[in-house]
């Protein structure tokens, strides 16, 4: 069998969908197609082979042919003031060539339909992950999908060929994203030694005290079934919550001991779950938790006040409320601090402190049909890529004539 050609060959320069120096070099060496000395078939063939090496190189030709569409989507940005002022009859005025006018009208910009030939491929999950800057190549993105590191609308999606629908949200494991886009790790002997020692330590700790099979869920479920907590329970919980609040407020942001923050988070969760009516969706953010606790306690007090008039003790005094909100603020700050802190970490699979990998800057762009949130490594596929006057949304490194030739190749039935 013939040897498979190199993926990055200097003999036959092909642009590939990755952030490598070879791709960058090939992009810099690209030229407009040679139309002078080649036959039309040769031109189309070369254009097709060059563009296919970049667009969906991982897809078989037959599959791509079935994906190909000859109708290319486009939009025209409209001006609402124009639409309100004119009903379009002014364009139909005059006869034949239109109404006479002394000044020349500005020609609208060309809509580059021919750069959109490969737009169905941008719908694929693996390509979208690459375009959202979550992987350094399409092949890597594909591997992430196959390895189960990608979720679409919160569900695991192991098919790289999944066609995203407008409105689909996809998430990639942040550690994998940081590995894919981060600078490569220099493997030193000391780093390796450290990792080995740590693993040995962990194994030892596991052997010494195996984790007791306790079931914390049992308690919470029994509590959650009740709609209203008894006043006594409530008081106990309030006390423990306020104690944790004090602890958190006393703690420094960025302190090594994270236990108090963790304990606070847990008590808040317990306090919320005490009220049966709270579902995890309604109190998913800290702000929502705060407002929920405040409202629930206030409502409780309003109920209690008329019955027990001699003891109008509010469940949560304004000072306590202030303290609680401060504690939540501090929790946010602490979390921000931890997330931002780009520390040296021998066990991470990328160079630490994290920095973008070489040549990433030259490839870093996010097309408009995606909305990306880098903090959670998630993105939403808003709509299909479109062409608009002067702009095509499919990122392609080739000349428009190359695009046209490639489009014509697939247009024709041979």
């Amino acid at each position: 069998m013939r040897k498979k050609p190199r993926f990055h060959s200097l003999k036959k320069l092909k642009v590939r969908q990755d952030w490598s120096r070879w791709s960058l070099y090939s992009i810099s060496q690209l030229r407009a197609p040679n139309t002078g000395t080649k036959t039309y078939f040769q031109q189309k063939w070369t254009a097709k082979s060059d563009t296919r090496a970049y667009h969906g190189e991982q897809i078989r030709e037959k599959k791509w042919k079935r994906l190909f569409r000859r109708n290319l989507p486009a939009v025209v940005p409209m001006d609402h003031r124009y639409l309100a002022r004119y009903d379009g009859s002014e364009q139909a005025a005059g006869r034949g060539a239109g109404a006479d006018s002394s000044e020349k009208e500005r020609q609208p910009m060309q809509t580059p339909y021919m750069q959109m030939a490969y737009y169905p491929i941008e719908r694929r999950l693996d390509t979208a992950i690459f375009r959202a800057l979550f992987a350094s190549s399409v092949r890597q993105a594909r591997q992430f999908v196959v390895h189960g590191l990608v979720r679409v609308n919160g569900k695991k999606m192991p098919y790289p060929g999944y066609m995203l629908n407008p409105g689909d949200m996809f998430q990639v494991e942040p550690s994998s994203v940081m590995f894919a886009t981060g600078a490569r790790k220099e493997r030193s002997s000391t780093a390796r030694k450290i990792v080995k020692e740590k693993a040995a330590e962990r194994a030892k700790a596991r052997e010494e005290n195996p984790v007791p099979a306790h079931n914390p869920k049992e308690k919470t479920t029994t509590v959650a079934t009740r709609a209203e907590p008894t006043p006594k329970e409530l008081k106990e919980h309030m006390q423990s919550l306020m104690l944790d609040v004090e602890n958190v407020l006393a703690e420094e942001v960025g302190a090594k001991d994270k236990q108090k923050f963790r304990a606070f988070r847990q008590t808040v969760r317990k306090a919320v779950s005490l009220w049966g009516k709270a579902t995890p969706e309604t109190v998913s953010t800290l702000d929502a938790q705060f407002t929920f606790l405040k409202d629930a306690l206030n409502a409780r007090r309003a109920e209690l006040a008329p019955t027990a008039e001699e003891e109008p003790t509010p469940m949560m005094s304004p000072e306590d409320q202030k303290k609680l909100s401060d504690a939540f603020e501090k929790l946010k700050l602490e979390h921000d601090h931890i997330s931002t802190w780009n520390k040296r970490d021998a066990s991470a699979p990328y160079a630490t402190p994290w920095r973008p990998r070489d040549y990433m800057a030259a490839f870093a762009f996010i097309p408009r049909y995606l909305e990306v949130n880098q903090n959670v490594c998630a993105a939403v596929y808003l709509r299909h890529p479109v062409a608009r006057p002067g702009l095509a949304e499919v990122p392609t490194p080739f000349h428009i004539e190359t695009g046209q030739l490639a489009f014509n190749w697939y247009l024709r039935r041979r």
Partner: protein
Amino acid sequence: MPPRLRSPNFPSVSSCPSARAQSIAQPARTARDFSQSSCRQVTLRRRKFYEWLNGPGRALKQPLPGSTNYLGAYDKFGNLVRGNVAPEKTPKKPKEGEAATKEGAEGEVAVTAEGQESADALDDALRQHEKEEQASKKKDGVQKLPPETAEDLRPFPLNRFFRSQPVLSEELREAIYQFVVKEGKTVPLASITFGVSNERVGAVVRLKQVEKQWIAQGKTLAMPYSKAVLELVPTTPYIDTSLPKNAGKRPVVHEPINDLIVHPATRQQLFVPVAESRHFTREDAGKAFDNNLLPADERIPHPELVKVVRDEIAGFSNEERRTRAEQRYRDAMEEKTAAEEAKKLHELQTKKIVPQRRWDFVFQDVSVEDAGRDGRSHKGVGWRYGLPHQDRKKGQVKIPTQVEA
């Protein structure tokens, strides 16, 4: 081909050994005769590759601080094009041109059919904002690069129809989230206020919600990555107009919000003879293409804006226009909810759901006629004679086509 004969006295064939030594890290091969392995000699192509990498390509290896770093921003010798211009001249010259184009755009807005001019104006506004920031930085004594032009934002220099477009900055995302979730404003209003398309507003809110959930759960965010990426790509800044320092400024528009989709029916060229005396409007033109084609004023994402301007032309006062717009919005909402309720009611009447332990049974009326005249329509229910299921056949694609959110 046998390996080339080489004398150890001449380690390289190159006429310029100094250049080679500079550009190639790996040493030239030592001759190993009779070896079957491929010749590892440094070829012309590889030499050129390394020359390019160490020459023009060197600047692209690391990000440019405080700016994007794309191939289109460099000439073929690896010099930053906008870096060469004297810093004194740059702010002055484009400003005049920009002012002229701006005036032109303002004047044309009422005349031209497409909003493309306005799309260009968006970029101009963005650049103007950047320029102002640069000017303020310069006052502080920090020397920085001039802002990028359209050419500098091209990652692929050969493709003039693609450029890296700005993404939303962190502050803008947060502002949109607060506007929609905290203040409870509608999505179209957020879209108009921030100059961001409807879908993007929804996506930003959804993603922000996930981010806030992660914070509440104590999951670590990918902050270093996020910061680095937002440094590498151009971003749309958030201008809080409520702040006193931003008084008189307008928020930077992120993207054109009134995109009209080119309808497939309008792709063909039509020659419709029309009497010269006839008032042939957009609506008539639409009818000529397709009888069901709505006019552009109703197919754009924000038809309410058109109505507001029409009210303005009709001579309504500010207050009246607002009340009318609100009334229209309320009517539309009522209609929508009524339709939804009717649909729900219909489902309740036609569907019967029997809840079970794990799965629910759903009973619903079907008709034999659904199978169609030849009995082969996919709408038909149940197994039909002569129509085998294809799903176990080889080559049937089983990738899901949609995932419920």
